């Protein structure tokens, strides 16, 4: 296997809550991950699990406390000043809110053109042609280039945000809930565009979302994050058909469905609560329906084969259980 487009090693970034010093700090705890060129990796988790912080650390909008973000052999976190600015070309981001993702005082052409000019992607004379090419790539008409954000719909604005991210020809794009604020029909349009782009451009993508169905649609590999750690990871098919962590199972069972499956994995208790969690033990323990004494000790990542791993003492059992066809009947009773 050739070297990955992005590799994150032991990334640590914690925010202490001054108001509640005894609570676990939120953020990212020693997360490592790799994304190969051309791969779309989905990152699932509830709000407060640290997925956005991880994304911001990767694109260099947040300085990690420790750890490395290696893109194309260079550690992004070690760069500063001019080098860091120039390096941003390689790692791009798309944000969630269509209302604030574009500068309201700039036309699309100027806003996206900044990336072309700052990184000197194409010579000045070729910029216009490049902008038109990029607009075509994300499914926008060329005349959208002369519009201001208020003249565009939410879906169009998200396309522009994607277009800006593509402009610098990055190796990695982090998409932080890019379709969560859109209507389902518009979401479907943008997701299709993203998928087509993936086939065409082949940029590595980290797709952050709380919507498991959306991640299932776009991603080939999935990471599940809880309280700053990755609790399960693996190929999308494996994780979705044989979830091996109680948290993943609860997340999947909770997803809204057009055809209710009757599949009832035991739900998590309550909500993500930082005060209940203790360092050194399994972060999911306070909410886990399957928690037992052993969970006072943080479980290692159990390897379930084919890159599918889960951080749970029961991972092997759960994996076998959910792979079995009888699983549904068992849990239903």
């Amino acid at each position: 296997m050739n070297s990955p487009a992005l590799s994150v090693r032991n990334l640590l970034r914690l925010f202490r809550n001054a108001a509640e010093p005894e609570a676990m700090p939120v953020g990212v705890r020693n997360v490592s991950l790799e994304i190969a060129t051309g791969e779309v990796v989905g990152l699932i988790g509830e709000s407060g699990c640290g997925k956005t912080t991880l994304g911001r650390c990767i694109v260099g909008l947040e300085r990690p406390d420790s750890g490395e973000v290696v893109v194309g052999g260079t550690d992004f976190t070690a760069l500063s000043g001019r080098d860091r600015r120039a390096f941003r070309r390689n790692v791009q981001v798309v944000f969630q809110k269509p209302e604030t993702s574009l500068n309201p005082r700039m036309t699309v052409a100027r806003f996206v053109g900044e990336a072309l000019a700052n990184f000197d992607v194409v010579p000045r004379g070729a910029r216009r042609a490049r902008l038109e090419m990029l607009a075509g790539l994300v499914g926008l008409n060329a005349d959208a280039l002369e519009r201001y954000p208020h003249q565009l719909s939410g879906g169009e604005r998200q396309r522009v945000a994607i277009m800006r991210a593509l402009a610098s020809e990055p190796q990695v794009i982090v998409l932080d809930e890019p379709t969560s604020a859109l209507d389902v029909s518009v979401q479907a349009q943008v997701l299709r565009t993203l998928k087509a782009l993936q086939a065409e451009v082949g940029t590595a993508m980290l797709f952050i979302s709380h919507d498991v169905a959306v991640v299932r649609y776009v991603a080939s590999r999935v990471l599940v994050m809880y309280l700053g750690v990755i609790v399960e990871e693996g190929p999308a098919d494996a994780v979705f058909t044989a979830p091996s962590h109680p948290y993943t199972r609860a997340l999947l069972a909770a997803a809204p469905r057009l055809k209710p499956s009757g599949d009832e994995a035991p739900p998590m208790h309550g909500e993500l609560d930082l005060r209940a969690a203790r360092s050194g033990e399994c972060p999911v323990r306070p909410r886990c329906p399957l928690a037992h004494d052993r969970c006072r000790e943080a479980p290692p990542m159990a390897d379930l084969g084919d890159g599918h791993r889960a951080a749970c003492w029961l991972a092997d059992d759960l994996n076998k259980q959910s792979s079995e066809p009888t699983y549904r009947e068992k849990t239903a009773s």
Partner: protein
Amino acid sequence: MAMASEIGVAGEPMTAAAKLPASRDSSWRRIYARVFAGDPLGLAGVVILAVLLLVAAFGPLLATHDPILTTPDTLLPPSGAHWFGTDDFGRDVFSRTLVSLRIDFIVASVGVTGAILIGSLIGLVCGYRGGWLDDTLMRFVDIIQSFPLILVAMVLVLAIGPSVGSIVIVTVLINIPLYARVIRGQTLAVKHLDYVDAARCSGATELGIMFRHVLPNTLNPIAIHASLNLAAAVGNVAVLSFLGIGIRPPTPDLGVMVAEGTKFLVQGAWWMSICPGLILCTTIFSLNLLGDALESGLDPRRQDR
């Protein structure tokens, strides 16, 4: 590329807005419609202000007499020859009003513009950088704000002498805090928005982010504040001149004229202070109308009127 273009077709065609011509022009027309449609008072303010500005600009040409030429025709009441009458030196009050309108407008607008430039810069830097720089500069702003207008004016006039220049400096100085605070607050709100981060990822420098992405998006309230502030500034210039620490005679100024006129009120020569005084009121009133119109028109929360 074939695939992408196919998506373009199957995807989302441009919405209603697509049919509008995308130019600056249309956005100005939009602002006009938003601010003045259904607001006759605001429109009246603009019209009066425009007339006053024209008068100020062409004042010397419109003047019927030499504004500083003394004649033996002292204290004549308003008539066909002297529309606003004459003063105790036989000078034509109407001509003097026209000329002083010009000086007052210049002093007020130069002062307010200076305050906007300096204040916005301080506010932008403070809001964007934060930390000790913010603390230091904002304390400095606090200090300016804690001095009463008259005191600042008197100290300055003592230091550099009474002149048009010192009045401009006073106007700049006392208005800096307003703009520094407004822009700082706006900057704090804008600097964390996603497009600022996006611009950073586009390789923009910190200066580029400040001036291209943050500053332009903090300026909306400035238009509102500036017109109200200009009204206050015109009044302040007059007040300072009235008190004798602003523009000095014989240079004509509305404040000076009102001040001199009051001495002759008891003799029945009301026109010397009332006529320039009314012009002063009209000016301030029209600026206030404009400010109110801008405020309700530009404030997105008030669009559902």
